[in-house]
């Protein structure tokens, strides 16, 4: 298959908007995905991830804005895009009343894979998804983890240039999720661009680059490392103190603690260097709270995401007020 000149970009999106009635699901989204990378689209449920992916795959018409997938316009050339991409929808949508093998053959045929090549691809997919022994089982009888792997297999049966995965591991146990990501690496290793949406933070760490989407807006993007460095200016402290809620109230009044959030049994506090750490400790001890261990930690993506969402909420409140 020939690919038009894409200047190394597999996906580019400019001011993409999708409204459903009064509700704006995707709000002036702009980003790009480089060819060959694993791009993670991270955001809570309802943030607009599926809507965006559906617009990119040409099955949902944008309200406004522009987009380009592997050199084809998402508004006018959606059929050309469909021939060249693989898509795995959020809800399992293979045929339950077809066998594993029949599903692969069906999608192979639909994408016009020649018979000889299809035989090879089928064997590869069955092996890759560890479904060889279940080739003749009805798909509906498979456990969720197997179904997801089969869906991935069917999405790549025609060797697409780019693979769109919409929450591929939703509802799957952690071991199966781990296995599934190994498969994604396999596919990406073959030079395929992978665009994957997720709301699991640990999965986001597997991606080359991330786009953080919240309430239909892109609030940050970059590699996991870049996001961690760029987005939290200052020192992140993990603070153990009892009772936690009282400690939270104290630090909310303390100017040295720029941001405070409950994180499990502890508090995560953003402050500036060692001086800030000392003032946080002093404030807590002065208030009669029992203070345990306080130490600097490397922020996780979850910290970043919580911080970014709070920023976005504050900005929205500021604009609204």
């Amino acid at each position: 298959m020939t690919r038009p000149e894409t200047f190394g970009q597999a996906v580019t999106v400019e001011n993409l908007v999708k409204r459903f009635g009064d509700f704006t699901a995707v709000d002036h989204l702009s980003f790009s995905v480089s060819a060959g990378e694993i791009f993670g689209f991270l955001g809570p449920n309802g943030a607009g991830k599926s809507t965006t992916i559906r617009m990119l795959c040409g099955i949902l018409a944008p309200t406004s804005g522009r987009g380009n997938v592997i050199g084809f316009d998402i508004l006018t050339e959606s059929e050309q895009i469909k021939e060249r991409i693989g898509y795995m929808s959020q809800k399992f949508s293979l045929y339950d009343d077809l066998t594993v093998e029949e599903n692969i053959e069906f999608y192979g045929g639909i994408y016009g894979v020649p018979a000889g090549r299809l035989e090879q691809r089928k064997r590869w997919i069955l092996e890759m998804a560890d479904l060889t022994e279940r080739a003749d089982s009805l798909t509906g009888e498979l456990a969720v983890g197997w179904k997801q792997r089969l869906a991935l297999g069917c999405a790549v049966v025609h060797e697409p240039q780019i693979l769109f995965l919409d929450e591929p591991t939703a509802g799957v146990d952690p071991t199966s999720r781990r296995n599934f990501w190994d498969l994604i690496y396999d596919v990406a290793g073959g030079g395929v661009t992978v665009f994957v949406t997720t709301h699991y933070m640990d999965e986001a760490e597997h991606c080359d680059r991330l786009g953080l989407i919240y309430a239909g807006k892109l609030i940050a993007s970059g590699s996991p490392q870049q996001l961690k460095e760029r987005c939290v200016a200052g020192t992140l402290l993990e603070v153990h103190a009892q009772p936690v809620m009282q400690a939270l109230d104290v630090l909310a009044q303390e100017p040295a603690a720029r941001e405070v959030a409950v994180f499990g049994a502890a508090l995560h506090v953003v402050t500036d260097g060692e001086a800030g750490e000392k003032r946080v400790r002093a404030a807590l001890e002065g208030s009669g709270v029992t203070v345990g261990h306080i130490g600097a930690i490397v922020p996780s993506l979850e910290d970043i995401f919580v911080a970014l969402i709070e920023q976005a909420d504050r900005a929205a409140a500021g604009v609204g007020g």
Partner: protein
Amino acid sequence: MLLRTWMISWKEFIQIFRDARTLAVVVILPVLMLVLFGYAINLDVRHLKLAVHDQDRSQASRDLIGAFSRGEHFDVTAYLGSYDEATEALDRGRVQAALVIPTEFSEDLAAGGAAPVQLLIDGSDSTTASTAIAYANAIILQHSGKISAGALRRRGLMVHAEPLALDTRLRVWYNPELKSTNFIVPGLVAVILMMLAALLTSMTVVRERERGTIEQLIASPVMPHELMLGKLVPYVIIASVDVVLVIAAGKLLFRVPLVGSPVLLLALSAVFLMAALGIGLLISVVSTSQQTAMTVAVLATVLPSMLLSGFIFPISAMPAVLQWLTNVIPATHFLVIARGIFLKGSGLSLLWPQALVLLLYGLLMLGLSSLRFRKRL
């Protein structure tokens, strides 16, 4: 691309054969409907219950009653003593007709004058009533002819061979015994196929929508017309099996003669099926749930096919607007074909206009379904 259309058909075939419910609909429903409707819809007027109130009680009156009870049209079920009893029997629906022979009947006859008799008929079922009147008139005409001839003979006059100026020699063609099953069963074939076909395809697209499999499909390069055609083909084949099933059942159970070519009947049935299946497909594309699709399919096919196609009610008796409307119903055209081939042995040289209309109808439905099907969510 032919491969994609074939893949859709292949997949659809597998799904049909793995679904016991669909198979039951395909095999049992048509035969069941044929049997139920075939026996239930009987327009022949036979064995009407007749009450007799004979005030004369003479040889002549007994002869007249005998004339009525000899044929298979009337069964004398009650001899009643009074006029009131006769009217009550009619009121209560115990009999459909009552024959009242007055006291002076034999005297009037002997005097050589016209002897009046009264026949009361339950007109609440007008079809039955008008048929009954026709039968009764025929019986009375024949009987009075016999009496007149007898009277003349007794007076020593010879009766000549041609007593009447006009002599109608009636011959009924195509259905000489006027058996209504011969008329009903070919029509039933049309109605049953129409409903079955629309029902089958009405599920096919909306089911994918309900199960969510449509999303993966519209994200693929398959084109709407490939999807529609691919979905239609398996059902044309399966419904053709039903054509054979229904025709065989019609012949075996109701002894309807098949005068014309079975091959032509099958071929034109397939054309009709395309139209009917196309209607179901369009319904499926437009519907949002299988439930709606099924209801719409049954309503949109059964009622018009039964009421407006000429299946039972003659189109020529309908108001002009309805007559025009009957052309929109595929069953109307197929009825002409089915009755033509079954009873008259008509060939394509006569039936091609109907066949052409059905062919265009099918293509139109397929086209509309493809246009209406959007590869968007």
